[in-house]
């Protein structure tokens, strides 16, 4: 068996100068797998996603995170990204004054350089970019605008997946990429994500809705509550949650909603 893409062992984490959010999370994701993480609001899903990408607001108390066998926690956020970790934000950030195409090229070149490949100039990169646009069916004009500035909620989400397409990560964490997307956009974006999956990479999909999982079919579903994984199952678990909610799981675990 080859090295897992991601291996989290008994992870406890807190907000810097704030409360503890994650209370012992363990999970292993192998190459080619898609894991869904579901769970009530405030259960720690985004926190886990941010910790994986190196967000400075959080602090790991104990536990271990290995990415391709390497200690992920000792890397800075930008190093993690260049190593192949990608987070599609629940709330993508607007960056006025920074051109979207320039930003994408900078990110692309940072990774190319880290992997010992040639950086591309603006002209050459435009071709790379043009080939990626159809994946999320995004119009070229969005490239000339400032990063996410004035983008609608759905457009921001598409822009996240465009970045994923450009960076071709080994591990992608999609934090509620479906929220804010209309029905057609959901189908398009999910289709794009599926195109980007291959046997060498892996994905975590955080979502509240079974509907996304009709398009992006998970191999494993985890339920996160109170900073812990309450239950792990196959895709049928998501269907159960859709019809029964979370209360029964919380009760089973001796927690109240």
């Amino acid at each position: 068996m080859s090295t897992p893409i991601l291996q989290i062992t008994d992870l406890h984490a807190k907000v810097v100068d704030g409360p503890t959010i994650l209370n012992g999370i363990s999970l292993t994701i192998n190459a080619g797998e898609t894991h869904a993480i579901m769970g009530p609001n405030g259960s720690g899903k985004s926190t886990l996603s941010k910790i994986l990408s190196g967000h400075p607001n959080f602090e790991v108390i104990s536990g271990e995170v290995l990415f391709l066998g390497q200690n992920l926690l000792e890397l800075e956020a930008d190093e993690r990204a260049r190593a192949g970790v990608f987070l599609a934000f629940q709330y993508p950030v607007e960056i006025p004054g920074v051109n979207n195409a320039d930003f994408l090229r900078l990110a692309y070149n940072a990774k190319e350089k880290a992997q010992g490949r040639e950086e591309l100039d603006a002209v050459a990169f435009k071709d790379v970019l043009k080939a990626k646009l159809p994946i999320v069916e995004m119009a070229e004009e969005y490239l000339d605008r400032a990063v996410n500035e004035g983008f609608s909620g759905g457009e921001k989400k598409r822009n996240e997946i465009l970045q994923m397409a450009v960076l071709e990560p080994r591990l992608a964490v999609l934090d509620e990429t479906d929220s804010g997307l209309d029905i057609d956009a959901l189908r398009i974006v999910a289709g794009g994500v599926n195109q980007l999956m291959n046997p060498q990479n892996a994905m975590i999909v955080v979502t509240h809705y079974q509907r996304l999982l009709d398009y992006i079919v998970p191999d494993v579903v985890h339920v996160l509550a109170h900073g812990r994984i309450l239950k792990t199952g196959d895709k049928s678990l998501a269907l159960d949650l859709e019809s029964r909610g979370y209360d029964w799981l919380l009760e089973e675990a001796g927690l109240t909603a």
Partner: protein
Amino acid sequence: MSAMCTLNPPDLELSPFEAGIQDAFQDLATDSLMSLRHAAKARFDVLGLPKPRRQEAWKYVDVQGLSRRSFSLPRPKGVDEAFVEWIYPKACRLSMFNGRIYNHGTCGMVQPLADAVIANPERLARLTHDVHQTDDALSLLNVALAPEPYSLHVPAGKTMERPLEVVIHHNKASNSFPAFYIELDENATADVLIRIKGDKHSVGSTYVQGLIHVSQAKGSRLNLTVLSNIAYAGYNFFNTQAVLAEDAQLKLFSTALDAEHFRHRMDVTLAGERADATLNGLSILSGQNKTHMHLRLTHAVPNCTSSQQFKAAIGGSALHEFDGTIFVLKDAQQTDAKQLSRNLLLSAKAKAFARPWLQIDADDVKCSHGATVGQLDEAQLFYLQSRGITEERAKALLTQGFCDSMLSDTYLDAHVKRYFMKRVHCALVAATI
């Protein structure tokens, strides 16, 4: 009767600067602007030099440093036509080199003010009237002493085919008094770019006391851009005074890039209904730079609109001051005015003072104002880093973005924008080391 009567007690001794002013006042030019010059001198004598300790608007300005330097008028002769890099491929061009003005080619609408008023005595009367109103003493030095104020007069319904481009530059310690009187008749339009630049090889300090006087008749439109980009010791003080009649529109953009001492006092009065003023500014400071954006915007009549946005990126131990007041007078109902000062501190010692102010005497108005002072946005920084961009690069990108967005939000001509982008980039490099 007092026993002792010292004529010049030590604390009343004139500074070299004041002494120089009094000398210069002794022989004001005897041109057709003489009455205007004398009015300005008389008003200056009443106001005196600004007093930082007593006048809030001068509190942070280095008037002391200024008063220690000598004051002299530019020499009347010796106009060297130095090499000038022009931004507009086609323009009416004026340059001022070490204080003396040079007219490059002919442009019917541009001529010395002394010539312009001969056929237009009412204009002179109006200018003289304005002098009595002003409370900004240094601007009066310009009115009284500017060797050759220029006039841009666009007649009714006319559009200036080419913009007016002015470059003010120095290669040695000198004083200059650039003065531009812009008069737009009904429905006239014009574009004016004034640039003050330094010369890397020049030493010593310059003193620029500039004046831009604008009067806009009904329906006229003016784009006015001022760029101060002086990377060596010098005081650059500018006054812009504009009065807009009904339906007139003014777009003013003031930038100070790496300017040692820059003060731009902008007085804009919306005096006719539906007049509209957009005032924008961008300052980038490094080292010990001091930039002061002082605005007084008056809504005197109903139904006018105004918007101000001033941004500053401040590095080193530089200081940026925004002091802006919107006056909404009693009759100015349905005023729509907004004002925003945004300051980005790039270093621990950088300072920003922002005093956005509203004084509203009408009751049915829509006004907003605000100021922010802070570092780069953490969320933006993390977003970029999460895409593999190093912290250092991400910071540079965000800082550049903060400034560039000011350029792209404005109406700037493409040539000007391109030139600015380059300058902004250079100024930022200086500000972030």
